[in-house]
Structures are given as structure tokens and as C-alpha cells.
């Protein structure tokens, strides 16, 4: 029988000295950690003015703050002193304002989506000044935001524009399973909310969020009820990110929380939505998205308008996953579709700027495709029965990089 071997030092007399040495090193390490913590807190504070862009490192160390902690920082006493993102994308406030009437001789275009669609809209304006474009967007908004916004405007009967466009962003598809922009993109959450849609017996049914305006964020009762709603209805709700505010004071703990929150988002996305190459056959994703887009197209046509769908295939979502997800449904229903991947494959980093958006040259190429779809409809007098349009004005800058 061999003796136990656990922790038998070669010299028991030297053991206390060694233990003291280890304890001393640990003590110095803890002291250094505290000093690093304090030093970084002092060196990289977030700016007092919430509308001021923080420095790169200040923002970096702020990323791990809990979502309520971030909101507490971003929301000022008044709207003017709050961060701009607080007021962005709220359906009840922005989608109640109908587009202005198009001047005579110009074709009105309404574009729903997110920053990607806004960038294309900007290029489209420059490309063809005869188009009067109005955009409705939320930060990284998914199709449920766009669809809800479209429905609200349609119900009010206030959108006279004959061209209706919805942009769908591949990386925003996971947000179909959410009730707002706070449970995804943990690092810089957007507080706006939107309904979540489900298919029940082939019909789209919506669940409205309890929080529906920036003012609701300050209402403790509504906020609590919204958190409870997220727990049950938002597949990306994460307790550590949404509620554990006790760790907000320490940069070190914030770094760990940031990692955990990102890992949670990655795991949920990989398990429920997209494995980085393709969208998973989740009945809460593909069929719901297709149903929204098909309904959008059907109702727009019924109103005598031209529906167009832009599929933005951005990075990290597979080469053509979005087209594979909804392309067949769109083709079956004859919905004019623009595919970003046809002009800008996401495997080529040159198509993207550092923050993950397309380059202006790519936006312009997508805008040209959109204009071609509009021209085709106007020329044939078919889909949407657009009035014939004047020849577009010459482009303001050359199509370099085309």
C-alpha cells in the first residue's frame, strides 16, 4: 500500500515560509489589480455629456456595464441631454409621421430598415434626384420592426408613396426572436422596442412590447413588467446582462460580464438562428420572416404600390444564407428582390468598412439595382403600376470601383 501523496512537502519546516511567499505574491497581485482598476477608472471616464462620443478606451471599458446601467448613463434628464440612440427607432413616435407628399414629377419611395437601408437610400437620392425618399429605420432593426412600422403607416393611410421597400439584414435576423434592441448587441444596446411575430395557424400574430417609448424606460413599473415580458418572450434575455447591476462598478467584472454576454448571444444565435454558414430550420425564423415579407408585398400590391425587398448579406452570416432563407418564398410570390451579395459578396472584406457596414461604393451599386427595379416597374407599367418616370439625372460622382 502506498502512502497518500497529497501535498507532502520535502521540508515541513520550509513550508510556512513558502506559504507566506505565495500569500505575498497573491497580495501584491490583488493590490496591483486594485491599482489598475482605479487607474483605468480615473484615466478613461465616460464623458459627462451623453451626446459626446466617448474615447475608444473609455467606450471599451464601458462595454461590460449591465444594460440597465448603460441606459441609466444614456438617459439624461431631458431628451436633449440624452444620448441620441435613446430616441431612435421607436415605432409609436416615428412611424406615425407619414412621409411628406412628393413634389410633382418625382416618385415617392418609402424605405424601411436599418442603417444599411439608410445608406442605400442616401446613395439612391444622389443617384436619382427624381426619387423622393423617406426612410423609417431603427438601429440594427429586424424585419419585425420594419413590418410593424409599415403596417402602422398603412393603417393610418398616410403613406402615398408608390414604391415601398423593406431592407432585411442577415445579422439582424436573430432579433426576430426578440422584443427590442436591448437583449442583443450587448455592447451598445438600442433601447427601442418592436413587436415579436409568430405564425399561428398560418397567420401572423404579434406580441406588443410593454415599453413603447423612451418615457416608458423611466417608469419603474413598466420597466419591471417589460423585464418580466422579456424573460418569457425574448429568446435572447440574459439575466447577467439585463439585471445584475452589482458588477457595474468594477472594470474587471465588467470585462468578464461582457465576455459572458457575448458568449450567450453567440450560443443562442448558433443554437436557434444561424451557425455562421446558414440559417437553421427554426419555425420561428424562416417561415415568420417569409410570411412578413410576402404579406408586405401582397398588401403593397393591393394598394397599387411597388414592393421591393433588399436582402443585405453582411459578414458572419454565411455567403447566401438570407437568400436561401426567404428567396424561394419571394420568388414564388414574384416579389422584386435586390441581393447585396450579387454586387458585394461578404467574403471580400473590401466591400466593408471597419464598423461592418458596406462601403459607399457598394451602397451605390445596391442603389443602382434598386433604381433598376423601380425603372423596370415604371417601364412595364406592371408591378405596382408606377407612372412612367423621367430619365434619371446624371450621377453626381463617377461609379468608381464598380
Amino acid at each position, binding site marked *: *500500500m*502506498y*502512502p*497518500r*501523496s*497529497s*501535498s*507532502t*512537502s*520535502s521540508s515541513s519546516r520550509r*513550508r510556512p515560509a*513558502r*506559504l507566506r*511567499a*505565495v500569500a*505575498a*505574491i*497573491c*497580495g*501584491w*497581485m*490583488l*493590490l*496591483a*489589480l486594485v491599482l*489598475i482598476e482605479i487607474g483605468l477608472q480615473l484615466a478613461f471616464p465616460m464623458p459627462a455629456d451623453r451626446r459626446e462620443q466617448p474615447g*475608444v*478606451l473609455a467606450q*471599451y471599458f464601458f*462595454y461590460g456595464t449591465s444594460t440597465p446601467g448603460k441606459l441609466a448613463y444614456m438617459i439624461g434628464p431631458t431628451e436633449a441631454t440624452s444620448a441620441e440612440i435613446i430616441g431612435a427607432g421607436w415605432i409609436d413616435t416615428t412611424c406615425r409621421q407619414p412621409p411628406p407628399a412628393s413634389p410633382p414629377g418625382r416618385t415617392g419611395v418609402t424605405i424601411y430598415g436599418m442603417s444599411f437601408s439608410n445608406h442605400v437610400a442616401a446613395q439612391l437620392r444622389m443617384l436619382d434626384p427624381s426619387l423622393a425618399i423617406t426612410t423609417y429605420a431603427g438601429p440594427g432593426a429586424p424585419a419585425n420592426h420594419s413590418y410593424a412600422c409599415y403596417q402602422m403607416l398603412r393603417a393610418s393611410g398616410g403613406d402615398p408613396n408608390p414604391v415601398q421597400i423593406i431592407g432585411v439584414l442577415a445579422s439582424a435576423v436573430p432579433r426576430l426572436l426578440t422584443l427590442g434592441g436591448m437583449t442583443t448587441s450587448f455592447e451598445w444596446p438600442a433601447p427601442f422596442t418592436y413587436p415579436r411575430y409568430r405564425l399561428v395557424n398560418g397567420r401572423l400574430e404579434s406580441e406588443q412590447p410593454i415599453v413603447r417609448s423612451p418615457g416608458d424606460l423611466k417608469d419603474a413599473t413598466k420597466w419591471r413588467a417589460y423585464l418580466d415580458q422579456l424573460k418569457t418572450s425574448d429568446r435572447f434575455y440574459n439575466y447577467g446582462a439585463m439585471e445584475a447591476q452589482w458588477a457595474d462598478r468594477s472594470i*474587471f467584472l465588467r*470585462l*468578464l460580464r*461582457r*465576455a459572458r454576454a*457575448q*458568449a450567450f448571444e*453567440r450560443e443562442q444565435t448558433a443554437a436557434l438562428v444561424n451557425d455562421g454558414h446558414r440559417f437553421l430550420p427554426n419555425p420561428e425564423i424562416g417561415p415568420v420572416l417569409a410570411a412578413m415579407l410576402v404579406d408586405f408585398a401582397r398588401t403593397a400590391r393591393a394598394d397599387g404600390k411597388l414592393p421591393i425587398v433588399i436582402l443585405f448579406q453582411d459578414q458572419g452570416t454565411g455567403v447566401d444564407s438570407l437568400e436561401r432563407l426567404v428567396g424561394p418564398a419571394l420568388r414564388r410570390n414574384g416579389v422584386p428582390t435586390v441581393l447585396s451579395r450579387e454586387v458585394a*459578396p461578404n*467574403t*471580400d*472584406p*473590401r*466591400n466593408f468598412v*471597419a464598423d461592418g457596414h458596406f462601403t459607399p461604393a457598394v451602397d451605390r451599386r445596391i442603389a443602382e439595382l434598386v433604381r433598376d427595379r423601380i425603372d423596370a416597374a415604371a417601364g412595364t407599367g406592371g408591378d405596382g403600376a408606377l407612372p412612367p418616370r423621367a430619365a434619371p439625372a446624371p450621377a453626381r460622382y463617377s461609379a468608381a470601383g464598380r
Partner: protein
Amino acid sequence: MLFNSLTFFIFFAVVYTLYRALPFRGQNWMLLAAGYLFYGWWDVRFLFLIAFSTTVDFWIGALLGKGRIAPRQRLISSLFLVTVAVLALNVDWHALATADLAGLLRPTPIGLWTVAGALAAVTGANAIYPLITRLEAGKQRRLLLFTTVAVNLGFLAAFKYFNFFVGSAEAVLEALHWHVEPVVLHVVLPVGISFYTFQSLSYTIDVSRGRVAPARRFFDFALFVAFFPPLVAGPIERARHLLPQLQRPRTIRLNQSMHGVVLILYGLFKKVAIADGLAGSVDAVFHSTGAVSTVDVALATVLFAFQIFCDFSGYTDIARGVAKLLGIELMVNFNVPYLSRNPSEFWRRWHISLSSWLRDYLYISLGGNRKGEARTYANLMATMALGGLWHGAAMNFILWGIYQGVLLCAHRLLTGKRRSLPTGRAAMTGHAAGGYAFARTTLWTGFSIAVFFVLMCYGWLLFRAQSFEQIVQFSAILIGHGGGASAIIPRPPISALAGLAVLIVLQFVEWRDGRPECFRYWPRPVQGALYAVLLFILAMGTSNVPAQFIYFQF
């Protein structure tokens, strides 16, 4: 089960607790079970390969060393192989997760065939055992060595190289307008197969050379092969170093444990903060289907040099640290390789366990430098080309190996047989006869390191390239053909940049000192501050997307 995952730390916490509670033999059995669990976490089916390799090499080792195997050990090893065949290929372990005990036993055709094969193998081996023991000594030795090499390299050939060689042969035949039906073996490459195969093979060769005594107990040898810290990415341990530590009771010293914890921290810092952080920037260039510039290729290649170093040496550090916590020493696998002045020195500092393996069992077996200059160069080239092939069944690895061979040959040609080179400290201080001489030596050393770093980086381009076409394209871009100046390579995360800065300083300090992890000898406050910095940057790096260790695929 990745070293940088929560699962591993839970696993190790359980292993460590049991280890401290158990007596010596119990520790070994528990470590063996832990090794099989650790490996089976990836793919339980491949445990049979390890068990088969273990059983064959135990038998051969015993026969080579003692001329016989104790009946009890024959029985144990035979039963072990059959048991693993049953458990690895006929049990659905996922059923445990759902507590579906009825669905636990799920025989598959391949599983049943494997059990039948294992039974046939052990029956056959036991039947011919008396015949083998009666063979003439020389004939017996040749037969046993042939068997161990055939079994171990046979597994490698089947699982790693079959498709590559058959595909290459098909391509040659197609080029000769001779159409053949493609033959593809649909198998997954077992994780770390090259590591444990080489480790096991070195044992039998060492026994045959009389350098190590054969293991007396089968389970000790099984633990030598399946000891989990170095199991899937090295270091490739030698029996004479690891086996004796497994065969006798171990003492865990506080200093050793402290060193182990520091190594784990250092390894995680390298892997999580730096390697995983750099991966995105490197991949963006090497996976790009669009145009890339000279700046992109050059930067991505340099970053990959640091990525692969931090990834691989990070794994080794964690493996060494974990082993130290168990009172076991593993060999040093990296010793500031990027401060080498020439290829010969580089291969004494990079992946030391593989380069010494290739030297001892391949280069020397081929004749080494004992058969004339021409043969020496041929041996160097053959050894490095095969070393490249060891990394993977792809043309770029072979090219990388050949490139390393060319560098070694060129260095030998230029410097003659002068081999011994001073360590960093000696290089910096050994010529202190005068200020001018010292300055000249320092400058020359710095220049040599810089030049060799560039040469070595080009080797990493060959290593990392996705295809032969990409090697040609990127090489052309590097020399100014087809590239531009504008860069698309994304900036690495802050953790990687901060980590790289700290790493470079530490590497330089280790090189000057000559001792790996020399910071362990620094004053306590400085040590504490350094560990705090490593820990903080590691916390920053936890946000990097975790990636599998690069060397697992080898």
C-alpha cells in the same frame, strides 16, 4: 474539451479533488479514466484507436525489453481492449444526459465489427504469443518493430493521409488523361492523433534501443499514452521522462503548484487574449475572396506568426501547468523561438518535443550527419519534409517542411558545422571585452534575429495558406505584383494588442535571462504586478471569439 473552456475547469476541479484524496494507485486509475473522458469528449469512438495503439505498444515494449509479458498483464490488456471496443462504439453516451438508461447500449454495425475485430486480435495475439517468444532474437526484434511502426503509422495513414495521397495520385493520373473513379475515405480526423501516436511509438523504439525499461504494468503504460494534459497537442513526451513519474508515488510541492498556476495563467493569456484575438484579422486576409494588398499579406503573416506561437505555446503552458498541479513535470516545448538567429537555433527552441523526436527517430535513423555531406543535406531535407507532412495532409505543409529544410541546409552550407550558439544572455554579454566589440555583437545579433524572423514568417505564410494557388498569389503580392497599398485587414482587438506588447517584453526578458518563465524569480511585488497585468489582459481577452487550438488538427 478545450483548456480555455468552463467545462475543462470543472473537469479539472473534480480530477484534482479526487487526485488529492486518492492513494497512488487510485490516482493512476483515476487519471487514466480522466484521460479517456477528456479525449472521448470530442469523439468517444476514437478511444478505440488509443486503446489499440496502447495495447499493441505495451505488448511490443514488453517483448522487446524482457522477451515476455506477464500472463496477468496479457489478460488485463486483452480485456481492456475489448472493453473499450464495447464502450466506445456500442454505447450511446448522450443517453446519459437525458437519463435514458434503456437507450445506453446501442450497438452499431461498425461497433459490433470492432468488438469482433478486437476479440479476434487479442485471441490471435495470445495464440501466437508463444511462437513470437521462441523466435530468434534479431528476427523477433525486426518483426516487433515492424509491427509497432505499421500499426501506429497505419492509423495515421488511414485517418490522416489516405485521402491526400489517393487524391494526389488521382490528380497525377488525370493529368495523364487516365480517368479513375475517385476514392474517398469518409472519416473524421481524430483529434491529436499525431501526438499520441508519436508518443507511443517513441516508447517502443526507445525500449528496443535499450534507453528505457519496459513498463511492468499495463495501466501505467495506458496512462502514459492517455495522460490528458499533453494528450491532444503535446508536448510529445518521451517514455524515459514521463513514464517513471507515473510509475512511482508523486510529491506535490507548493513551489511546483505555484509554478503550475503561473503557467496556466500565462498559457491562457497567450491563447485567449492574443491568439484568439489575432485570429479574426488573420482569417480576414487568408479567407478573403477579394483583392488583398501587400500590406494585408505582410501584416496577416506576421500576426499569424504570433497567433500560432501563442496558440500552441499557450496550450503547452497550460498542459505543463496542469501536470505540475498533479506533481508531474512535462518537457519544455518552446523557448523564445522568435529570438532565434538562424534555423538551427529556431528548431532547438520551437516545438522542441517534435523537433527532438524527428532528430532522434528519423534524422539519426536515416544516418544523420555520419554518412557524408551530401547525405546529411538529403537527410535534413527528408526529415523536415516529413516533419511538414506530420502537420497535415496538404501540399502547403509539405512545402513548409521543404522550406524549413532548405533554410537548414543553407545555414549549414554558410556556417559549416559550427553549431553551438550562445544563449541570449551570453550573446549580449559574452563579448564584453570592449565597448566596440559589444556593440558590434549586439547589432549583429539583432540583425540576425530580424532577418531570420522575416524568413521564418514567410514559412508561416506557406503554413497558413488555404491552397497552393493562394501561396503563389500571396507570394507575388509580397514582392509587389498584383497588390496595392490600401489595407483591408481589421485591427486586432485591444486585448490582443496589449497582450502582444506584454508578451514581446516577456519574451525578450526570458531570452536575456536564458531561463523559461524567469519572471518567477523576480521580487514578489514585481511578480504580483505582472500576474495582475496578465490577469487583467486575460479578462479583456475573454470577449474574443474562442477558437479551437490550431494544433488539435494535427
